[in-house]
C-alpha cells in the first residue's frame, strides 16, 4: 500500500506516506490496494461516461455509483475489503453498460468510436488474488519514476479534491439534490486523470475547475438541507444528557438523522448528535422533534472514549469512523458508504435493529444539569443582521473577522486553533464551521453589541454559507473579498477539506493559513506555485499568525 491522502499520514525519516501493513488511520494494506483499484475502475467508467454524455446519452446512474464509490475511499469511511471487491464487480458491469450506450450512440450519430486506453480497457479480474496482484498499476504513485513527484502530487490534489466533491454530492443526493452538470464535471475530472496528465498548467486549471464544481455541489447540499429541514436559525443545543434510552448519531448525513428521528418518534428513545451532526439542532424540521435530546461528546477523534461511555447504540452515517473498541463494537452500526468488518450495516434507512438495541441498553439513568451551546448562524442568520454588523464595522466596534474552521484531529498541534481563538482581540468576530470548533465552542467568547463573537455556521460544507457571507459583506463595503478585514484559518484533515480548499482558491481567496501541517502530497515546488498565486501560508504560531493577520 501507499497512501498519503490525509493529514495524519506517516512522515518519518523524510518519507511522506503510509506504506506499511496498516496505515495510520487503521486501513490495512489489502483494503488500501482495493481502494486504489476501485478508483482505477471509476476512471474507466468516467472515460466512457464522459464520451457518452458528450453525445447526449449520459447516465446519472453511473454518476451515482461514482459518487458512492469515491466516498467509500475517503479517510475513515470504509475499512471493509469485502465491500470493495463487491464494488469492483459492480464497476465492471456499470462500465460495460456505459460503454455500450456510448458506442451505440456514436454509431447512430455517425461519430467515429473511440477506444480509450488505460482504465477504460482494464480487464477487471474477479479473483481477489489476481486483483490485488495489479494494485501497483493503480497506486497514486504509478508513473512517478517517469513524471516526478510534483506531477504525481498535483494529480493527487485533484483526485483527493474529487473525492471530497463526490462525498458532498452524495450527501446532496441523499437529500434529493443532484445535477447533470455536476455529474458531467466529475466524469470529466476522472477522465482527465485517466489520461495521466503531465502539464502543470493543465493540472492546476483542472484543480481550480474542480473547486468551482465543489461550490456548485455545496450549493446543492445547502439547497438539500434547507429545502428539507428549513433555514438554520440560532438555537440552543443541549450538551448534557437527559434520562432515558438513547441513540447517538455521528458522521454527517442529515437524511439518516431525519429518518431515524421519524422512526423513533413516540418510542421513548432519545436521539443525540455527535461530531458534525451538531448543526441538526438549528434546522427547524429536525429540532422540532422533542426527542432530539442534545449533542454528546466532541469531535471524531475522541469517539473511542465517548462511544464507550455512551449508554446506547451508535449510528455512524459517514466519515469519520475509527477502529471500534471492544466495549462498543457490538453496538455501533454503519450506514451509507461507511463500513468496518464485523459491524452491522444498515440499508435503506431501516433502523429497527438500532432501535431494538437502544431499548436493550440502559440509556441515561438521570437528567444531568442543563448546559447548552448556541448553533445555527448560517448565512441567513448572519445576513439577517447584516445592517447591525456593517454598522458595527463602520463604528469600529468590529475591527476584524476570522474564519477558523475545518476538521479536527488527534495531533497535538491542533491546540493551535484553540490558542488562536483565545487570543483574538475582543473587537473581532469568529466564524466557525466543521468539527475543528469543538476545541473552542464550549467557551463563552462574549458578544459585540448583542452579536455573539463566535458564530457557528454549521458543518464543513457550510463553508458555502461562509462564502456567501463574505461575498455579501464585500458587496456592502464595495470591495473585493480579499480586501475585507477577514482572515481564514483552515484546518484540514481529509479530502472534503481538500475540496473546500480548492473552492476557496478557485474563488481567488488569498492569504489562507492552512494547517496544522501541509498535505504530504504538496511538494515544495507545488507549494511555491500556490504561494505565488494565492499567498497560501502554513501555520507557524498562533501569536505570529494572528499578528500577521491583524497587520495585513
Amino acid at each position: 500500500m501507499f497512501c498519503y491522502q490525509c493529514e495524519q499520514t506517516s512522515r518519518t525519516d523524510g518519507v511522506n506516506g503510509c506504506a506499511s501493513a496498516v496505515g495510520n488511520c487503521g486501513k490495512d494494506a489489502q483494503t488500501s490496494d482495493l481502494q486504489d483499484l476501485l478508483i482505477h475502475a471509476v476512471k474507466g467508467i468516467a472515460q466512457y461516461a464522459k464520451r457518452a454524455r458528450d453525445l447526449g446519452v449520459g447516465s446519472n446512474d453511473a454518476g451515482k455509483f461514482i459518487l458512492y464509490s469515491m466516498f467509500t475511499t475517503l479517510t475513515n469511511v470504509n475499512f471493509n475489503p469485502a465491500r470493495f471487491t463487491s464494488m469492483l464487480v459492480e464497476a465492471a458491469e456499470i462500465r460495460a453498460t456505459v460503454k455500450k450506450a456510448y458506442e451505440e450512440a456514436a454509431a447512430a450519430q455517425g461519430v467515429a468510436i473511440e477506444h480509450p486506453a488505460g482504465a477504460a480497457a482494464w480487464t477487471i479480474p474477479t479473483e481477489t488474488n489476481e486483483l490485488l496482484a495489479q494494485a501497483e498499476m493503480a497506486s497514486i504513485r504509478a508513473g512517478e519514476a517517469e513524471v516526478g513527484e510534483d506531477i504525481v502530487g498535483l494529480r493527487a490534489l485533484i483526485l483527493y479534491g474529487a473525492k471530497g466533491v463526490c462525498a458532498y454530492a452524495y450527501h446532496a443526493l441523499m437529500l434529493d439534490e443532484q445535477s447533470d452538470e455536476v455529474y458531467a464535471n466529475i466524469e470529466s475530472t476522472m477522465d482527465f486523470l485517466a489520461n495521466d496528465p503531465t502539464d502543470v498548467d493543465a493540472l492546476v486549471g483542472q484543480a481550480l475547475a474542480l473547486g468551482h464544481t465543489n461550490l456548485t455541489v455545496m450549493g446543492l447540499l445547502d439547497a438539500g438541507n434547507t429545502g428539507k429541514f428549513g433555514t438554520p436559525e440560532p438555537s440552543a443545543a443541549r450538551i448534557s444528557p437527559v434520562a432515558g434510552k438513547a441513540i447517538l448519531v455521528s458522521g454527517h448525513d442529515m437524511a439518516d438523522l431525519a429518518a431515524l428521528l421519524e422512526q423513533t418518534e413516540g418510542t421513548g428513545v432519545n436521539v443525540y448528535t455527535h461530531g458534525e451532526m451538531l448543526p441538526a439542532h438549528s434546522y427547524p424540521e429536525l429540532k422540532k422533534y422533542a426527542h432530539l435530546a442534545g449533542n454528546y461528546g466532541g469531535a471524531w477523534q475522541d469517539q473511542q472514549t465517548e462511544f464507550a461511555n455512551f449508554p446506547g447504540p451508535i449510528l455512524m452515517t459517514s466519515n469519520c469512523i475509527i477502529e471500534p473498541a471492544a466495549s462498543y463494537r457490538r453496538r455501533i452500526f454503519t450506514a451509507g458508504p461507511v463500513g468496518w468488518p464485523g459491524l452491522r450495516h444498515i440499508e435503506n434507512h431501516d433502523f429497527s435493529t438500532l432501535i431494538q438495541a437502544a431499548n436493550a441498553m440502559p440509556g441515561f439513568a438521570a437528567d444531568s444539569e442543563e448546559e447548552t451551546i448556541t448553533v445555527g448562524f448560517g448565512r441567513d442568520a448572519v445576513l439577517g443582521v447584516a445592517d447591525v454588523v456593517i454598522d458595527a464595522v463602520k463604528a469600529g466596534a468590529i475591527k476584524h473577522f476570522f474564519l477558523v474552521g475545518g476538521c479536527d484531529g488527534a495531533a497535538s498541534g491542533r491546540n493551535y486553533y484553540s490558542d488562536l481563538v483565545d487570543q483574538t482581540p475582543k473587537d473581532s468576530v469568529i466564524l466557525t464551521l466543521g468539527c475543528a470548533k469543538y476545541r473552542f465552542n464550549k467557551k463563552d467568547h462574549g458578544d459585540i453589541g448583542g452579536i455573539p463573537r463566535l458564530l457557528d455556521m454549521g458543518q464543513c460544507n457550510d463553508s458555502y454559507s461562509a462564502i456567501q457571507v463574505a461575498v455579501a459583506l464585500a458587496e456592502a463595503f464595495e470591495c473585493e473579498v480579499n480586501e475585507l478585514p477577514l482572515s481564514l484559518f483552515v484546518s484540514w484533515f481529509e479530502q472534503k477539506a481538500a475540496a473546500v480548499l480548492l473552492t476557496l482558491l478557485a474563488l481567488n481567496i488569498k492569504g489562507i493559513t492552512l494547517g496544522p501541517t501541509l498535505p504530504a502530497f504538496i511538494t515544495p515546488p507545488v507549494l511555491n506555485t500556490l504561494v505565488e498565486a494565492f499567498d497560501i501560508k502554513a501555520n507557524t504560531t498562533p501569536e505570529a499568525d494572528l499578528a500577521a493577520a491583524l497587520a495585513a
Partner: protein
Amino acid sequence: MSQTYSICLNTQDGKEISFDCTADENLIDAAAKANITLPAVCHEGNCGACHGHCKSGDYKQSSHSSGALSEQDEGHGGILMCCTHPQGDMVVEVTSDLAHITSGPVPEPVCEVLAVDDMGGQVRRLLLKVLPDESGAINTEFEPGQFMELEIPGTDIRRAYSISNAPNWTGELEFMIRLQPHGKFSSWLLNGAKVGDRLNTKGPEGSFLLHQAGLAPRRFVAGGTGIAPMLSMLRQMAEFGETHESHLYFGLTTEEDLFAIDEIEALKASLPNLTAEVCIWKPGDAWRGFVGSPVDAFKRDLQADLGKGLKPDVYLCGPPGLIDAAEAVAEELGLPYSSLFSERFLPG
C-alpha cells in the same frame, strides 16, 4: 515477593497489549488484575479456552489436560494461559483481535427458558431469553463463536455451550446440546427443563471468533454439536450479506445422529457462496453422501485450495481428536497455523 515480568500479548490483528505478571501468578489472573479480561473458563487447564502461543520468553506450565493442549502443540510453543507462570518477560500470540479483548468482569445475566425442542440425533435446542437487569438493560451482546456458561437451576453446576443463533437485540440465545448419558445438564434438559424456568448464566466468553478483516475463503469443520458456533457465524454472515466463499463440513458418526439439516439448508438459501457437506463416519447402506470424517473431506479440498493459491481461514470445532487431526492436516499440507481458529469441546 516473587519476580515480576512483563507480558506482551500480540493480537490477531497485529496489535499489542501488555501487563505485569509475577512468577507465582498465571497469565489469566495477572491480566485480570490489570482489568484485561482474557478468554478463560475452567482456570484449571481443562477447557482450552485460554489457548495461546509463546513467541519468546521462558515459562513454566502447571499440569493440564492433554485434550486442551496436545503435546504436539506444546512442542510448538502452545500454552494454556491459566497454567502458564512466567520465568522471564514473555511475548504471547493470542487468536483474539484487540477489539475482542474486553475489560472488567464477564456479565452474569439471568435467563428464562423460551423453548426446549428435540432436533433429532439426541440433540436438544435450548432457547433462552436474557432478562433485564436492575438498570432495565438486556445484556445480550456477543460475537458469533462465543459461548455461555449455563447453571443448572437449583445447583451450582455450570456447563459451557456455544451460542448458535446470530447476535441480536431481542435477548434470545440459542444452544444445541447433545444429550450425554448420565450428564447432569442433559438430565435437567430431559427431565426438568420447562418453559419459564430461570437460569443463572455467565458470558459471553471465548475467543473462537470470525476473522472478519480478511477476504480469504472460509472453511468450517464441525464435529457433532461443534456445528453450533459455526451456525452463529454463518447466520451473521447471511444477515450481513457477506460474500466470502465458504464451505461447511459437518461430521456425524451415523445417520441416526443427523440434526440441524434444515438450518443448514436455510443458510445455503441465504448465503449464495456457501456450500455444505454432511460427512458420516459409519453410514448405513442407503447413505449417498461423503463417507468418513469431516477432516478427511477437508483434507481433500485443502489440497485443491492450496494448489490454486488460496489460503483459507479454517474454523474447527468439536472434540479434541477432530481438532488435532485437522491441525495435523494443515501442517502436513503447509497451511500456516495462523489460518486456523479452533474451539475444543471437552467433557464438562
